[in-house]
């Protein structure tokens, strides 16, 4: 319904089809129906990224968390454990510095740093350009480490297979319902730093229960990147994703 004159007639055609819009005059001005998703531009670029990855059989994960949850340490340990059995590359997103990309490069994996400046999230456009310099190998695993932020990256599809939310036990176990959009968008929740459980009041079962309230299907995986506990299951999950990405695109 038109919100100016209240008329309930006229087709609200999708803007991509033609110009047969719901036009009518209000003096010098007219109303046009747009009906376009605000994120349509990002989503189109994300689909382009997804096609690029599918053609090359690359399994891509978008790692999201608060700052300091241990994303980079988890990635370094993951790359070390994969131990060149298959190629791994990393896109690092931070507002400033190359510190994280340098830590990844030290493991021997390919890495490219994106500095978003004032930006609070990576978007599909930045990631598409990162592919150009990174040139991830066919059949590889690509980790996209998003800017540490549990809010904004939830809305931006980068073309990944899954978002993985990382929650460390030094944070509150109720984070999944404090930041429901992110835990709703993620396929997996890695609970990191479980070696610290004896020293903190974090209740793992409660954290999983909160997460399932916003996302009944979320996979929860407690790990310690530091001691290696739980890493085997994490690596198996990555391996299975990689296998499926390659089956789809041999």
């Amino acid at each position, binding site marked *: 319904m038109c919100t100016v004159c209240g008329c309930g007639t006229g087709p609200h055609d999708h803007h991509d089809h033609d110009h047969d819009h*719901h036009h009518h005059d209000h003096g010098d001005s007219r109303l046009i129906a747009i*009906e376009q998703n605000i994120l349509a*531009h990002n989503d189109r670029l994300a689909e382009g990224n997804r096609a690029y990855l599918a053609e090359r059989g690359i399994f891509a994960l978008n790692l999201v968390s608060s700052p300091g949850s241990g994303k980079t340490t988890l990635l370094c340990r993951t790359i070390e454990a994969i131990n060149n059995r298959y190629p791994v590359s990393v896109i690092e997103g931070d507002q400033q510095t190359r510190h994280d990309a340098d830590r990844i490069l030290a493991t021997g994996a390919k890495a490219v740093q994106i500095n978003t400046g004032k930006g609070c999230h990576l978007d599909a456009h930045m990631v598409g350009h990162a592919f150009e310099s990174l040139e991830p190998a066919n059949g590889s695993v690509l980790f996209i480490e998003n800017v540490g932020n549990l809010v904004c990256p939830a809305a931006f599809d980068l073309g990944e297979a899954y978002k993985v939310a990382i929650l460390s036990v030094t944070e509150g176990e109720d984070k999944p319902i404090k930041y429901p*959009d992110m835990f709703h968008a993620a396929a997996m929740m890695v609970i990191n730093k479980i070696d610290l459980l004896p020293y903190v009041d974090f209740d793992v079962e409660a954290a999983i229960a909160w997460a399932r309230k916003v996302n009944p299907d979320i996979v929860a995986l407690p790990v310690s990147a530091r001691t290696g506990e739980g890493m085997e299951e994490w690596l198996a999950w990555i391996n299975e994703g990689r296998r499926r990405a390659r089956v789809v695109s041999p």
Partner: protein
Amino acid sequence: MHELSLTQSVIRIVEQEAARQGFATVKTVWLEIGELSSVLPDAMEFCFQAVAAESPVAKGAKLEILRVPGTAWCLDCAQSHPIAQRFDPCPACGGHHLTVTSGEEMRIKEMEVA
């Protein structure tokens, strides 16, 4: 503050439509923002004023935000129910097996142009 990028996307769409449909200025932009979406309407309005000021087409335009209430389909009791937040239980059975059916919208609905 992802509202800033979202607002920039809105202005980009406005400018594309101006070129495509041949209008010079937009007076009002109506957005449909779901109550379960990650958008804070106040932040969006704040960003809109700043971003629109830089756009020849959108300069001085008014932003109107239409909120869309959240509804979800409960897989356990096979009914649609209103929900206020993502983690709300099904008001009928108390379960969490809900699929959101509306309230996630982030759309440009209409524009008044001249």
